[in-house]
């Protein structure tokens, strides 16, 4: 439901703060733990949630999310089970927007129209497909339109003013600004360099702008929260999963406490340094 995303951003605007958006990989490290994490995210401070669905060949991901996808696939995660997890989440939470993020091929296998319908039924509100630029996204955009799901686009440092209108056409909910040229979780985002781009994307789209790729710490999240409408953290969270698994610690507790720290930093960002 697009309205869920719009209502959430409107409420945050009224509060005068940015959204905190954690990214978690469905089925990482296993379906039950991942669902427990998902269900715990709103109470830990998530304003919106990005749920990655695993793909064997994620070409824009750095090592942390590559490994998260491999853990999930090794544990038997599928796209069908991803939708089931979101449906289970929705029984307890009717307000927190859920954005599904991943790659094209599993959708091709499912069938685009059928997938959009099934995703809507599960309670998905938006979709980000990393390897589906506007040039190839027409059929998915039609299918999502028909099912009231937002197609959320990525704008990047290489998206110049000439291309930006192409990128934001048919998009809704928000625009995701990729703060660095690179894969996820490697380079660090610099808030002062990002700010003018956020403004540029806001002007071109008339939509809130989320910033992600390369935000790992509460300090960095706080800095980005002062210039963007939402802050996305992914690699740093899936790294917590990896470490907790390695150390045989409580995975859910560890991820949610990291989410709490990041969410707090984002909430307090516009009240001054944390």
């Amino acid at each position, binding site marked *: 439901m697009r309205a869920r995303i719009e209502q959430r951003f409107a409420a945050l605007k009224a509060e005068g703060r940015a959204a905190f958006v954690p990214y978690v990989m469905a089925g990482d490290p296993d379906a039950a733990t991942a669902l427990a994490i998902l269900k715990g995210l709103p109470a830990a401070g998530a304003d919106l949630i990005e749920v990655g669905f695993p793909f064997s060949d994620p070409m824009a991901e750095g090592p942390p999310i590559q490994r998260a996808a491999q853990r999930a696939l090794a544990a038997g995660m599928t796209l069908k089970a991803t939708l089931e997890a979101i449906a289970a989440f929705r029984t307890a939470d009717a307000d927190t927007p859920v954005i599904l993020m991943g790659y094209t091929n599993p959708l091709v296998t499912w069938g685009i129209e059928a997938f959009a319908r099934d995703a809507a039924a599960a309670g998905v509100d938006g979709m980000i497909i990393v390897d589906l630029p506007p040039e190839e996204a027409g059929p998915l955009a039609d299918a999502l339109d028909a099912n009231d799901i937002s197609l959320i686009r990525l704008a990047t*440092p290489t998206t110049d003013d000439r291309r930006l209108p192409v990128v934001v056409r048919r998009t809704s909910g928000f625009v995701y600004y990729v703060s660095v040229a690179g894969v996820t979780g490697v380079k660090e985002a610099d808030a002062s360099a990002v700010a003018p781009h956020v403004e540029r994307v806001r002007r071109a789209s008339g939509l809130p702008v989320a910033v992600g790729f390369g935000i790992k710490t509460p300090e960095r999240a706080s800095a980005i929260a002062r210039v963007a409408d939402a802050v996305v953290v992914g690699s740093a969270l899936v790294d917590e999963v990896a470490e907790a698994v390695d150390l045989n610690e409580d995975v859910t507790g560890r991820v949610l406490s990291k989410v709490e720290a990041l969410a707090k930093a984002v909430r307090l960002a516009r009240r001054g340094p944390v």
Partner: protein
Amino acid sequence: MNAPVPPHSGRPNDYTAYPDAQGRFGAFGGQYVPETLMPLVHDLTAAWGAAKVDPAFLGELQGYLTHYVGRPSPLYFASRLTEHFGGAKIYLKREELNHTGSHKINNCMGQILLAMRMGKTRIIAETGAGQHGVATATVCARFGLPCVVYMGAVDVERQKPNVFRMNLLGAEVRPVTSGSATLKDAMNEALRDWVTNVHDTYYLIGTAAGMHPYPEMVRDFQAVIGREVREQMMAAEGRLPDAVVACVGGGSNAIGLFHPFLNDEGVKLIGVEAAGSGMDTGRHAAAINGGRPGVLHGNMTYLLQDKDGQIEEAHSISAGLDYPGIGPEHSWLHDVGRATYLTATDAESLDAYMLLSKLEGILPAIESAHAIARIGEIARDVGKDGLVVLNLSGRGDKDVATVAAHLGRTV
């Protein structure tokens, strides 16, 4: 994205009119890449569009192909192989005699000239068997550009001589351990490098796959093979061949051979995919014969994948054919029925390797040996008065250790 299985629209009037402006061969091809790369892909499309009609660019390329690569490569009548099978006359297109020992150099020479024309100062590439890596390292050495080659850690291990060759040529070989640590993962890693180094880096893809314009561009650079075959066959026999045959992994040597014959419907086009341990074992690399359409590495094409759309590992004795996809133009030629795709197993290809070595005194690349494995049946089908051409895409010295291991010997 289009429907994964395209409507059977019948044969087009002009096969050479593809890809269309969107980079499509029917339902196949396209530009499925992250937004960061889209502006770069558009720049490349524009630069290639200008270069391919620029006589200065084409003249410079022709000069290097003649004096550095050693073109034209001979079209050789393999009389003992012909006699052995007792069918059509078998000609071998001797791409293995090119500088660096395979057809890969044709494409590398074209793309390096384009990269320099675009002002790029750093070259990256992926490689499987190492033939494309060696060819890329070679042209980078020739023109003084730094070169990074991504190669699956598994392939680094089984193709050590080529790794050393690349090092000698000044290239840095980066072993890739992610995923299945083979060619598809090397390509993922090269794409990740390109996404990260967007300003100075040129990605020199080695096969006629990936996002538009690569399938078209690589095909056009390799089409010199088929153009020469047409001329050489007219000179030798006064007519076109009845069939042309090539091994297919990504499919660059095959599409280079096929393309100048696409509109000559009397010329059968036959590709041979790697059947690995056998099509019924599930351990193979035959995307068309054992896969279904999907999206990987920027294009819609036939892929080896599971029921959920996860890409499956390919299996072949030949590192150069060990890829779960195939170039989109082959997918289209298969669907419209213009080309036929057969398979050959590891064992059949080893036999063919030894057969050609003994009968003609030519060690073929284990990749090319897959085509040789089917040439007897093809020659008999075509019949005694017929003419067939097999693309001998690479030389087999690199494979002697692999072949020896299968014979229970060490070298």
